[in-house]
Structure formats: structure tokens, C-alpha cells
């Protein structure tokens, strides 16, 4: 049922050979052991980590530094000022204080849903593929069905049926997790299928290891970068999903997240009153956090898919060769067929 060809998907198993190849080209040794699982530090990774850490700290520490987000003041809608850095809402509530609490709420739900969805996808993806035959067929069918059923309308319908008073944080988290695990499970299944048939897995099976041990000790470590990248995506998806749900008023009751802030901003006519300080910061935090996570994912991608890295090296070499060739040709033309060292230098 899968359209994505396994051959087109990056395979973790290829990485060792490719890394060896790269090292002979660059003359550097490949990094050893567990360090191979860590991404190299690039400017993009640094920016991504910086964004994540800054926003996480704001969510963790911020609520202790700001005042009461619900306190109503007799001043109405005011723009940013020295006292209220991000202005106030219609009822005089401090936007910055609300933002700090809302960031904490959003991060909380993102991590919970990320963990739940990753666990679900690991179970259906890895266990099904490891058992093979009927179990694999059934799990794979189940996964694909969940993949094609549109998630958000389903979430909306489920939230619509649950009365508002019993719609807590965990209800929303579970509903979001149930509708978001399928894509990762499918990728994990393809990866597990390729790892499962390796000799060392067969060896451990022959030596009488129990299935759960083979999965956890032999197979899982190979899939860790993939799972890490999927966890990161699951967190982004969860934060976005929850924000959307809260924005239409179907989020967890008595919780405050960035989505609820936007809901109140929209309902308080922030848009038509031009109160940009009310609705821009919450969305910006979601966008920046999501960008940070995606940037980290790019770096993880380089471990999962060494082709991306090696190809860049190849390209660089090809470009250098092309440039030299061009210079040589120019020099040849100018000097009537005799390329000399001075001509080559002047061509530069």
C-alpha cells in the first residue's frame, strides 16, 4: 500500500559505508561510536537550538517573573509601554504575562502529545514489521487507514461531542496523539523491514533472545535518529494542532495556551481594532519554536541521510573542476592555444 519507495527513503544501514567513503575523500576519520549519532554543529543547528532553548526557558521561568495574567485593570486596550512591554488586552490584562503562561501550556501539550504519538508509531511501526506476515499486514493496513482519514476534522468532531466540562488537557492530548501517529509509523515500518533482515539480528534470534530484547537492543538503536526526528515533528504538529483547536474554541477547558490567546484576541476584535501586540506575539512564538525544531531536524536528517551531506561534497568538487576548466579554456583562447601560468592568473 505504500507509495513511498523504500529505495527512495534514506536507509540508516547505508550510512556506515558512505561515512567511510566520505572520510577517505576528506582525509578525516569518521567519528566513532555513539558520537556518530550526534549531529555536527552547524550555524543552522546552533540557531535552532538557541530558539528552542530561549522559548523553553521563557515558558519555564517566565511565569515566575511576570504578574497575574488574569488581573483586570481599568485601562482597556493599550499598546506596548514601559510598564506593559507587550501592551494590554481589552480588559487591561498584561499580554506579556499571558504569553509566558500560554507558552508553558503549549510546550506542555506539545511534549505530552509528542511522547504519546512517538510511542504509538513505534509500537505499530516496529512491532508490526518485526513480527511480519499477518500482524504486519494488519498493522500496516490500520496505519494506512489512519493516514488517509483527515485528522483535524476528526479531532473537531470528537471535541464537538465531548462536553466542554469534561474536555481536559489529557483528553485533548490523547485525541491529538491518536490522529497524528500514522505517518511516522509507516516510515518506521519501512526502516524496520530493512534492519530486520540483517545478519546480526538473525544471529541474536538464533541464539535465543526474546523478541522484545531483539527489538529493544538490536533494532531500536538503529532507528534512534529516525525516531528522534519524528518526535521533533510530532511536537511541532501537536503544538500547531492544539493551537488550531483552541483557536476555534475546542481546546482543553481551563487551560491557557497560545491558541487560546489567539482565540480571545480574535473574539476581542484585536484585528479590526489594530491591536497587533495582542495577536502577533503568540503566533510568532509558535512559528519560531517550530522553525527551531525544524532546523534541528535538518541536522538529524544529515545523520539519517548521508547522501545529503556527501552530495554537497561531490557538487563542490564538480564546481571547482568546472571553474578550473573554464579558466583554462579562457586562457587558451587568449594566448592562442598556449596556456601559461601568467595568463591563468590574469584570467582570475
Amino acid at each position, binding site marked *: *500500500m505504500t507509495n513511498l519507495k523504500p529505495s527512495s527513503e534514506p536507509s540508516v544501514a547505508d550510512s556506515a559505508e558512505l561515512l567511510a567513503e566520505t572520510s577517505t575523500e576528506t582525509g578525516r576519520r569518521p567519528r566513532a561510536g555513539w558520537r556518530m549519532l550526534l549531529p555536527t554543529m552547524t550555524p543552522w543547528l546552533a540557531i535552532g537550538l538557541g530558539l528552542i532553548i530561549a522559548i523553553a526557558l521563557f515558558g519555564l521561568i517566565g511565569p515566575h517573573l511576570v504578574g497575574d495574567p488574569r488581573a483586570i485593570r481599568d485601562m482597556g486596550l493599550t499598546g506596548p509601554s514601559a510598564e506593559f512591554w507587550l501592551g494590554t488586552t481589552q480588559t487591561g490584562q498584561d499580554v506579556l504575562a499571558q504569553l509566558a503562561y500560554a507558552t508553558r501550556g503549549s510546550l506542555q501539550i506539545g511534549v505530552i502529545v509528542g511522547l504519546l504519538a512517538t510511542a504509538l508509531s513505534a509500537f505499530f511501526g516496529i512491532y508490526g514489521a518485526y513480527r511480519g506476515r499477518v500482524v504486519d499486514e494488519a498493522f500496516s493496513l490500520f496505519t494506512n487507514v489512519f493516514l488517509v482519514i483527515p485528522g483535524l476534522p476528526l479531532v473537531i468532531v470528537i471535541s464537538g*461531542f465531548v462536553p466542554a466540562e469534561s474536555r481536559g488537557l489529557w483528553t485533548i492530548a490523547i485525541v491529538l496523539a491518536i490522529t497524528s501517529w500514522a505517518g511516522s509509523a509507516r516510515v518506521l515500518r519501512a526502516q524496520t523491514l530493512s534492519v530486520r533482515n540483517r545478519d546480526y539480528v538473525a544471529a541474536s534470534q538464533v541464539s535465543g533472545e526474546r523478541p522484545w530484547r531483539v527489538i529493544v537492543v538490536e533494532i531500536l538503536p538503529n532507528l534512534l535518529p529516525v525516531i528522534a526526528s519524528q518526535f521533533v515533528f510530532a511536537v511541532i504538529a501537536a503544538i500547531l494542532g492544539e493551537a488550531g483547536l483552541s483557536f476555534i474554541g475546542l481546546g482543553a477547558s481551563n487551560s491557557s495556551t497560545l491558541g487560546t490567546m489567539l482565540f480571545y484576541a480574535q473574539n476581542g476584535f484585536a484585528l479590526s481594532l489594530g491591536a497587533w501586540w495582542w495577536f502577533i506575539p503568540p503566533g510568532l512564538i509558535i*512559528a519560531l519554536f517550530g522553525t527551531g525544531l525544524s532546523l534541528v531536524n535538518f541536522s538529524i536528517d544529515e545523520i539519517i541521510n548521508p547522501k545529503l551531506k556527501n*552530495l554537497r561534497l561531490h557538487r563542490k568538487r564538480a564546481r571547482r573542476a568546472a571553474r578550473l576548466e573554464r579558466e583554462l579554456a579562457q586562457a587558451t583562447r587568449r594566448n592562442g592555444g598556449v596556456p601559461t601560468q601568467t595568463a591563468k592568473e590574469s584570467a582570475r
Partner: protein
Amino acid sequence: MSYFLRKIGFYAVALWAALTLNFAIPRMLPGNPVDILLAKLQQRGGTVTPETREAYALLLGGDDSLPLWRQYIDYLGNLFQGDLGVSVSYYPAPVSEVIAQSLPWTVVLVGLATVIAAVLGVALGAFVGWKPGTWLDSLIPATTLLAAVPYFWLALLLTYLLARVLGWFPLQGGYDVVLTPGWNAEFIGSAITYGFLPALTIVLASIGGWLLGMRNMMVSTLSEDYILTAEAKGLSPRKILRSYASRNAVLPSVAGFAISLGFVVSGSVITEQVFSYPGIGGRLLGAVSNNDYALMQGLFLFITLAVLGANLVVDLLYGLIDPRTRARS
């Protein structure tokens, strides 16, 4: 041929799963939707006969007199007759009529925006992937920023900048309300003006995914032997890009089109809410806030059906354009 049969079989199973989910959700969750719905119906001046009650009980559960399997069969029977009940919030219009009214808006808006985003994203992605390692690569982080932006927030932002500050576009709605809907130039022009901002939102928010997917496939494709052969033959780079690399690299994007459609439909549900657009998404949210469970169920079924149908078409087309898919199964 077995490829096509397998695909059709899979979508039949998926359809059955969606129908069953629709049957199970109201029965598994707390609350009694039938009573709420009937109370609303009476408020609107509808007469509640025992038959009406029975029909809603089949749709939403709550009728304990029949065994569950019997309810299930009757529910499926009602669905195949196209009977989705009467909408409470648009009383006395039946649910199917409300859906039929709002459908064209969403189909045109989401369909056009998705096609534009896909074509633009794939073309840009092919171009960026063709020259990896150049300054064009720095476009990638910019697109991830766009992909991480919540749809509805982008909608709010665009509305604020383009509609409120600059005043180029109307704030919300699907057409100028003084006009009567019809196939005349004035009305269509108004619909285009009103639809521009929602469409722009969907295109901007979804283009990043296309660009990135195509670019990554392009980078992998360039290391294939047939590209080397083509270069060795002395073909012009433009021809290699068009006839060799792009054609092979675009295949996963075509397959991804179907899956992304589900995401786009989801995203556009909330986007429609921001713009008060008279499409399916706006109706769904309206139904939720009005406790119009019959309309809610009908819309969910319809959206699922549309996404499944689009997936099926793309899958069948995929079997045609990539013969390897057929050979493998």
C-alpha cells in the same frame, strides 16, 4: 491489474473504517447528543415525530431498544440512501443540501490554492535542488519558517496587513453580500477578490513542504547513474534537468499530493473560520458551536469521502505514471 484492484480494495476498507468511526464516536463519548439535537429542533419549530427521533438515534446513538449490530446496519442503510438528517442550524434544510451549497466554495478555493502551491513548490524545489550548496540553499530555512507558522495565524497576519492596513482586500466573507450568487462577471469578480486572501494563505503555508520534498528528491536523483550518463553524452544541463532529473524526482511529490490534500483540507477548515468563508470548514465549525450534530457528522463524512476519493485518483494515476509500482505489487 492487481495493483488497481488492491488500491480500490484498500480504499473500500478505509471508507468502511471512516463510516464505522462516524458510527462509533457519538456512542463512545459522554453526553446525549440526540436529546440536545431534538430540543434544538423543537426550538426552531420542527415537529419531533417518533420517526425523527429514531432516525437521529440511528445516526448518533442513544436508542437502546435495538441491539448495536441492528443499529449499525440501519445506519449504513440510511447513509446509502443519502439520508443524513435535517440540519438544526439551517432548519428546515436537510444536511445534504447545506453541504451541496457550501461545497463549491471550498472545492474551488482549496483545489486551486493546492494546485498553485504544488506547481510553484515543485518547480522551485527542482531549481533549488539542481544547484545544491549555492546561496539558493538558504531559501530552505525561510520555507521552514513558513511551514511552522500556524495557518490561521498567517491568515490573521495577512488580513491585518493587506486588508486592514493597506485596504487592498475585503476583511472577510466569500462575496459581496449585495450581489446575488450567479454566473455573471460581477459576482465571479467579487468572489475572486474575496477569495484571494484565503488562497494566498493556503499557498504560502503549504508551499514550503513541496519545495523541500522536491529539493531533497532532486539532490538524491542527481547522484544516480543515469544522470552521469546523460552528462557524459553531452546533453545540455537544461535538458537533463527537464527530461531526466525532474521527471524522476517528482514521483514522490505526486504520491505526496494525496496525503498533503488531507492536511490542506484540515488547515483550510480553520482558515475559512478566520475569513468567515462560506465553505465546508466554516459550516463544520458552525455546526460544532450550535451542537448541530447531524450536520457535523454529515460534513465529517463528506470531507473524509472527498479526501479518500482524491487519494484513490492520485494512487491510480501514480500506477499509470510509474510502472514500477504496478510491477512490485
